[in-house]
């Protein structure tokens, strides 16, 4: 996948500090067009900080992030316009707005109404459940449906790279399976490039093509996901047991 191709999203040497704490230390990560890349790690390892640094919602102390070779702008709204959307940790759907309004706000950077409708049809094809519930308030959806809405909302901006922060958080295993199956569809049907951070390491490794392991703010390992799934260190530390 990576012979001479240039990465679509590239994180180079990025550090983020919260006061005296280094939440992210010189992180390097590449995502190539069309692939699913996972970042796995424990609670507080810096996964969400990495996402926030890409989205511009935390200031980075050093380093550069590029999309297709161009440095990303500093502010969140500009990052979205540049082509990166996030489905945030804890879903963060707009509870008092309807499903339809949630999707419309996701399309905020799009100028043409025809683009919005086209994107909406794509999202409804992936998540028919959202179309059935489009008039319902987002706050009345189940957790799994809210996660679908958060992903659909992020897709509405017509991103080039989709970021997913802990899509399995707080969901029942059967719902997690469903969500991850749909993510594969997002990747296949739309050719969407996905960067996902997950605590559920097994699910993330099974979904992704390549993966990075993050530990106390530093990236410690990287490789093809199927290799990492069988790596004794990973199995021991993240997959809950010996093989």
């Amino acid at each position, binding site marked *: 996948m990576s012979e001479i191709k240039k990465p679509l999203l590239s994180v180079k040497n990025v550090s983020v500090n919260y006061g005296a704490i280094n939440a992210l230390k010189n992180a390097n990560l590449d995502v190539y067009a069309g692939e699913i890349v996972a970042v796995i790690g424990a609670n507080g390892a810096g996964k969400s900080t990495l996402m926030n640094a890409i*989205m511009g*919602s935390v200031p980075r102390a050093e380093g550069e992030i590029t999309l297709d070779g161009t440095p990303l702008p500093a*502010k*969140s*709204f500009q990052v*979205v*316009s540049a082509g990166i*959307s*996030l489905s*945030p940790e*804890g*879903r*963060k*759907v*707009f*509870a*008092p*707005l309807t499903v339809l*309004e949630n999707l*419309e*706000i*996701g399309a*905020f*950077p799009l100028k043409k109404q025809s683009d919005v409708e086209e994107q909406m049809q794509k999202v409804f094809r992936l998540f028919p459940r959202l179309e059935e519930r489009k008039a319902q*308030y987002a*706050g*009345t*959806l*189940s*957790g799994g449906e*809210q996660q679908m809405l958060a992903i659909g*909302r992020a897709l509405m*901006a017509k991103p080039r790279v989709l970021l997913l922060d802990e899509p399995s*958080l*707080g969901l029942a295993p059967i719902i997690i399976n469903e969500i991850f199956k749909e993510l594969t569809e997002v990747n296949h049907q739309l050719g969407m490039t996905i960067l996902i951070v997950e605590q559920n390491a097994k699910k993330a490794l099974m979904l992704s093509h390549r993966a990075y392991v993050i530990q106390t703010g530093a990236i410690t390992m990287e490789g093809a996901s199927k290799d990492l799934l069988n790596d004794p260190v990973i199995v021991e530390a993240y997959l809950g047991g010996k093989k």
Partner: protein
Amino acid sequence: MDTLMQQVINGLSLGSVYALIAVGYSLVYSILLFSNFAHGGFLVIGGYICYFMLRNMGSSIWIAAFAALIGAGVSAVVVERLAYKPIRERTPVTLYMLIASMGMSIVIENIFVVTIGGRFRALPPVIPTQPVDFFGIATTSAFDLLSLVTAVVFLVALQLFLSKTKWGLAIRAAAYNLKTAGLMGVNVNRLISIVFFVAGLLAAVGGIFLSVRYTLYPQLGAMITTKAFVAAVIGGLGSLPGAVVGSLILGLAEMLAAGFISSQFRDLIVFGLLIITLIVRPTGLFGKSVGEKV
């Protein structure tokens, strides 16, 4: 019966003007989660712009009112940029903005005191105040009917703006979660400026009517801010329908108290209502109830 009807119409009229102030105040609260005590300053700015355009420039009321609305809207944006933006960019603690807003309220008030003096000024008689017969059920003044109608027009326009436009949707989303709205590609600083502009503009509409009702003076803003605050709390802070309903309740209570008890009891009733609300239903009539599943 005649007095009752008359006081009800007067109460609704006063309440609807309060609503113009309270809605802007609640709108700012819903986005930035602090009570903007400088809000009354915007209505005073609007009132004085209107006064001087009428007195010194000889403008028609339409032009004077238009200038007042735009002027108050712009000054609200300027206050936000000067006093609140530097704070909200540095800390998530909204208490500092509340304190800054108290400071800005004093600043605006005293700019008028030192430049044009603190005396009471009556707007030239541009808004008709003659008595009118209200469908034979009551006698009221043209002014009361006009302020009621104007307030309703502006509130409906606000509702249309919020429900039908792209920025309106963004404002409703931001009222639930400002940061997440930013992640949707919404320019948060521009959104906040729009909100302050709208709030200042609505305050100026109220300011013009209130300066006809009470005459215009620099401290008018502080008095009305308190009323708008009480109305917003009764309705549920941050809820726009709540602010409107709270304001109408307040206007009615004031006018009925003035008509049937004594006009000296008006403020007592106002604060009595505030206390009862805080004891019985602290979230107000329309307090937020829909939750997010985590």
